[in-house]
C-alpha cells in the first residue's frame, strides 16, 4: 500500500518539476526576446556612429539605405587623426583628465582615511557635507564660477578664462566628493584589527595609510579612479563656458563647435570624432567592467 502511494507520488512530482523547468525555459526565451529588443534600442546610436564614420560625404548625402555601408572608407579617420586641431582636442582632454585624476586621488584618499578612521570634531558632519556636495550639479555653479574667474583674472592679471588649465582646478569639484564618499565606504569596511596591529607594530599614520589601507582598498581605488577619469573626460558644460579659443578646447566641446562649419554638418567627421572621443571610456569599461560597476553601485549602497 505504502509503496504504491510512493510510486504514485513519484511520477506526479516529476511532471511538476517538468512543468516548472518548462516555465523557466519559456521565461528564459521571453527574456532573451525582450533583451534583444532593448539591446537594439540601447546600441543603435553607437552602431550608427560607427556606420556613418565609415562613409564618405558623397555616400552620406546619397539617398541610399542609411543603415548600410556600401563603400567603406577610412578617410574620415585618416583626416581627423592627421588634423592638428583634432589631436589638440584629444591632447587637451587627455592631459586634463589625467591631472584631474591625480589631483582627485591626492585630495580624496587622505580625506577619506581621516574621515573613516580618525574621529575628530565635526568629522561626521564633514562626511555628510561631502555627500551633499556630490549632489550639487555643475549647472548650478557654472555662472558664479565664470564670474569668479573673471574677477580673479582682473585682480591678479593671471589669465584664467579661455585657458584649459583652469579646468584642472574646476573638475575636482565634480570628482572629489564622490571619490571621497566611496573611499570612506571602502576604508570603513577594512577591519579595525588590521590597522591596530600596524600601529602596535609602530607604524605611523602615513605608513598605515600607504601599507595597509591603499593595498587593501585597491578595488575601491580603481573604481574611484575610473569614475574620476570618465567624469572629467565627459564634462561638457564647464569647458563650453570657460574656454572658447580652438586650441584650448577639449574633445566634446571641440567636436560640437568646430566640426560644424556654418550650416554644413560634416556628419562623417562628426561621427568619427564622437566615436574616437567615446573610445577611451569604452576601452576602460571593456577591460575594467567589474570595477566600473562596483563604483557605480557603491555610491548608493555603501556608506
Amino acid at each position, binding site marked *: 500500500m505504502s509503496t504504491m502511494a510512493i510510486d504514485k507520488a513519484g511520477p506526479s512530482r516529476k511532471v511538476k518539476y517538468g512543468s516548472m523547468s518548462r516555465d523557466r525555459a519559456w521565461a*528564459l526565451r521571453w*527574456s532573451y526576446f*525582450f*533583451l534583444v529588443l*532593448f539591446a537594439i534600442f*540601447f*546600441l*543603435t*546610436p*553607437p552602431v*550608427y556612429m560607427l556606420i*556613418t564614420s565609415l562613409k564618405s560625404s558623397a555616400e552620406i*548625402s546619397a539617398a541610399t539605405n542609411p*543603415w548600410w555601408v556600401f563603400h567603406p572608407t577610412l578617410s574620415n579617420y585618416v583626416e581627423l587623426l592627421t588634423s592638428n586641431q583634432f589631436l589638440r582636442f584629444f591632447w587637451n582632454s587627455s592631459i586634463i583628465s589625467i591631472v584631474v585624476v591625480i589631483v582627485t586621488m*591626492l585630495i*580624496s584618499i*587622505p*580625506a577619506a582615511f*581621516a*574621515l573613516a578612521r*580618525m574621529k*575628530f570634531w565635526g*568629522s561626521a558632519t*564633514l562626511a*555628510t557635507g561631502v555627500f*551633499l556636495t556630490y*549632489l550639487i*550639479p*555643475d*549647472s*548650478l*555653479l557654472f*555662472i*558664479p564660477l*565664470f*564670474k*569668479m574667474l573673471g574677477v580673479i583674472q582682473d585682480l591678479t592679471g593671471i589669465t584664467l578664462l579661455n585657458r584649459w588649465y583652469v579646468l584642472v582646478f574646476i573638475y575636482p*569639484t565634480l570628482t*572629489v566628493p564622490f571619490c571621497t564618499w566611496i573611499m570612506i565606504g571602502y576604508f570603513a569596511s577594512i577591519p579595525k584589527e588590521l590597522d591596530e596591529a600596524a600601529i602596535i607594530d609602530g607604524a605611523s599614520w602615513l605608513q598605515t595609510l600607504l601599507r595597509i589601507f591603499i593595498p587593501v582598498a585597491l578595488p575601491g581605488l580603481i573604481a574611484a579612479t575610473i569614475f574620476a577619469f*570618465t567624469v572629467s*573626460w*565627459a564634462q*561638457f*558644460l564647464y569647458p563650453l*563656458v570657460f574656454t572658447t579659443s580652438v586650441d584650448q578646447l577639449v574633445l*566634446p566641446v571641440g*567636436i*560640437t563647435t568646430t566640426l560644424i562649419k556654418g550650416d554644413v*554638418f560634416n556628419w562623417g567627421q562628426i*561621427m568619427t570624432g*564622437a*566615436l574616437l*572621443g*567615446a573610445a577611451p*571610456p569604452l576601452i576602460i569599461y571593456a577591460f575594467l*567592467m567589474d570595477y*566600473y*560597476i562596483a563604483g557605480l*553601485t557603491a555610491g*548608493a549602497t555603501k556608506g
Partner: protein
Amino acid sequence: MADVVVEQGRIARATGARKGSSLRNTLGRKSTVAFLLTLPLILLIALLVLYPAFFSLYLATLNKAMTKFVGLGNFTFLFKRETFWMVVKQSCIFAITAVIFKALIGFIVAHFVHNIPGKKQRKWRGMLLVPWVIPPAMSTLAWLWLFDPSYSAFNYTLSYFGVGPIPWLGETFWARFSVILVNVWYGAPFFLIMYLAALKSVPDQLYEAAAIDGANWWQKIWYVTLPMMRNIIAITTLFSLIVTFANFDIVRILTSGGPLDTTHLFATWAFQVGIQSSDIPLGACVSLFMVPILAVAAIFILRDVSKRGNEA
C-alpha cells in the same frame, strides 16, 4: 561579538596603562593629522563649491551691468516672463517623465537580465550599460544625426511602414519627446545596474516561500521584490531626479532649447541668458530656481543614507 569587544577593551586598557602619556600625545597629534588630511578637501569645497553657491545668490541681486543692487528685481522680472514659466513647466515635464521611464525600463530590463544564467548575464549586462559609458555629449551627437531633418535614419526606416516623416526636432511635441527619449536612453542603464544589484541581494528563500504560498509572478513582485528593493528604488530615483533636473548636455546639443524655447530646461536657459546674452545676474537667478527641488531631493536622500548608516 561581546567577547571581541571585551578583548578590545582589555587591550586598550593594557596599552593605555603601560604608556598613558604617549597615548595621549598620539591622540593629540591624531586630530591635528586628521585635520591636515582633510584640509585640501575642505578648501576645495569651501572655495569652489560653497563660495560660488553663495556668490550666485549675491549675483542674482545685481542689475545686468552688475553695477547696481536691485534686490529681488531679477526674480520679479522673471516671474513676469512667459518663457520662464514655460521653462519651469518643461523642466518638470522633462525630469518627471524621463525619471519614470528610466525607472520602469531599468526595472523591467533588470528582471530580464536577472533571468539569464551565469556567464551570459555578464555579457548582456556589459552590453546594456554601454549608453551610460559613452560621454553624453558624444552620444547625443549620434542622436542628432539620427534625428536629422533631411537624412534621418529613423524616418527612412519608418517610411517603409508608411509613417510619414516625423519632424523629430522641429515641432514642440516631437522635440520634447526626442529630448526625453535621449535622456531615457542615456539614464536607463544606470537604473538597470542598480536594480540588478538590488535583485541579487533578495534572498531566494523569500521567493520559494511565496511560491509555496501560491503567489503568482505579480504577487511575488508586489509583496517580495518591491518591499526588498524599496530603499534602492527610492535613492536611485531621487538621485536621478536631481541629475535629470539639472541636465544640460542633451538639450543643448539636440535642440539648443528650440523650437521657440519650448525644450529649454533651467540649465540650458541659464546658459543662454547668462553666458550667451551675457546677463550674468539673470542667468544666476534662473539657475537658482533649481535649488528648491534639489534641496528637497537631497533631504530625502540624506535621510535614507543616514538611516542606512544606523542600520549598518
